[in-house]
């Protein structure tokens, strides 16, 4: 496939390794010289959050962007109560939507990957095809649907669409994985008299754990970062997700309403708190996280 690219590569000159090594060494230094500033710039906004989260009004007014001492950790305590409610709301939604999506996607993938029946591929593509439809086409009709089903201002308005979207992407991701599992395992289980469900639950599901973890992270990131859909379906503060909570806190600070014009420190403290859950997940499941991030692209 790429043979043409390698032409001329075979005549390796053996007399050069030392100079190459020196060159590579120099190159390595240059790499860090570019990477480190880029990294620092990428992280700068986050450092800004941490710096400003510890400011009183006076400190902020005087030095809005430099570190000021003393650092007021109590700002975090002030915001912790409100933020924890938003975090719980988001967790409830994801805590139902993601298992639902995983269960539907894994069982459906199992059926598609391990059995043969008329129309199977057609049904499979009927599901996969849904990934081609962009969110913009969904926004208006899904809102009207949720409205007519009476789901407005209930968590189901988020859970059902998230579960449906997650199940579609899940089938796409899990079916090939399920199909790649060794048939002998399944055969052995069936000979032992296990039914379809038992084979799925005892054999297929445990083997699929890595891909399920990846899928979980992808869905979690998507739901956690969703701004538009919660903002049209959730209008009561007690149901706000993390994103909506942050948005309403920030709006009131930027426009100077309820929280008062000068509570910037509190706002940034809330920003920091809102990041903790995903940091926690990342620490627990670093590998699945990185995998999830990079395979999120498989969608298209």
């Amino acid at each position, binding site marked *: *496939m790429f043979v043409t690219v390698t032409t001329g590569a075979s005549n*390796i000159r053996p007399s050069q390794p030392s100079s190459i090594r020196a060159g590579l060494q120099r190159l390595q230094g240059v790499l860090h010289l570019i990477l480190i500033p880029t990294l620092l710039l990428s992280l700068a906004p986050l450092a800004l959050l941490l710096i400003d989260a510890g400011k009183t009004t006076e400190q902020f007014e005087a030095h809005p962007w430099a570190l000021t001492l003393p650092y007021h950790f109590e700002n975090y305590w002030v915001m912790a109560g409100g933020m924890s409610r938003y975090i719980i709301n988001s967790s409830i939604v994801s805590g139902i939507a993601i298992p639902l999506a995983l269960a539907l996607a894994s069982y459906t993938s199992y059926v598609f990957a391990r059995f043969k029946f008329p129309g199977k591929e057609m049904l499979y593509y009927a599901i996969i095809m849904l990934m081609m439809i962009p969110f913009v086409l969904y926004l208006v009709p899904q809102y009207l649907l949720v409205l007519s089903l009476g789901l407005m201002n209930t968590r189901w308005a988020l859970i059902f669409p998230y579960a449906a979207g997650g199940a579609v992407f899940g089938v796409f991701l899990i079916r090939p994985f399920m199909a790649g599992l060794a048939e002998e395992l399944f055969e052995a289980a069936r000979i032992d008299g296990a039914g379809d469900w038992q084979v799925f639950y005892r054999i297929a599901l445990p083997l699929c754990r890595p891909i399920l973890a990846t899928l979980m992270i992808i869905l979690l990131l998507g739901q956690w970062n969703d701004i538009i859909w919660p903002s049209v379906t959730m209008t009561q503060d007690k149901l706000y997700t993390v994103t909506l909570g942050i948005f309403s806190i920030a709006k009131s600070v930027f426009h100077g309403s309820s929280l008062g014009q000068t509570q910037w420190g509190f706002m940034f403290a809330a920003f920091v708190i809102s990041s903790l859950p995903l940091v926690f997940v990342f620490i627990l499941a670093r590998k699945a996280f990185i995998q999830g991030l990079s395979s999120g692209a498989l969608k298209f």
Partner: protein
Amino acid sequence: MRDIVHTPHAGASNYQTHSASQNTLLQRMWRAKRYYLYLVPIFALLGVFSYYPPIMALYYSFTNFNGVSGKFIGLENFSDLATDRIFRASIGNAIKLLLANMVTGLIPPLLVAELLFSLRSRRMGDFYRTAFLIPTLVPAIVIIMTWRYIYHARYGLINSLLSAVGLDFLAHDWLGSFDTALPALIFFGFPWINATIMLILLAALIDIPRELIDAFRLDSTSTMQRIMHVDLPYIVGAIRLVIVLNIIATLQGFNLQFAMTGGGPGTATTVPAFHMFSQAFFSSRFGYGSAIGTLLFLVIAGLTVLTRRYLRSGIEYEA
């Protein structure tokens, strides 16, 4: 085992055509009935929340539905769009954003991916990879709000920095002025290292056969030449994917408009997707909004197909 329907010539297409085997299609479907039963739950959920909405979107596009009532008005929404001043402005903005994001959404992540790929030390590579994805752990809305603060006219970081170096006269209400609002949205996220995209490109680079890279290195060809002649042709598939992702994200995304600028000042930063949103949700013009959604869907589908067709791998050609 005996439950599996065996056909000597397995394959979906064979089922639809007449059967050479002794069983009719219906008989085989009847015998496989429980597999269909297994699929009922997912199709029940998708039926309501995944199939029904887009169909309704197409239908609403031809009505003046306002949330309560509406009637069929044919192509009126689409002809109204042609003369909609805001919509026309939003298309101009979308094209500018699309062109800018082609660069900012691909080049910086590609550069960092190449740099990480060239790193010798595995430990340093791991460190950078992890460090670059830290911003992904922060909710998108927080990043957006932080940038809104960076651009803030009074407290913003940019204006503070400018006055610190004595360039007060350059200070600006970056998001509030017509001429700087759209550039400010483009500059958002600088240095634009999207971890997802960087990881995709890095994964593609790591996939290049080692011998190929080593051969070029030993040939003491310059790194630049290697990148041009080996890396880029080899990862064209990943690059194409990134471009498609960027196109889709730019055309359907409006988080920045929603949380930062409200599409303004005036029409300075509005995009078609945001126009759809505001027409539907601020003016209850759901039919009109759906028409914009339908158009966007067609444009996204068209551009995706075009990218797939015209940005082909150099390797694919040579093979």
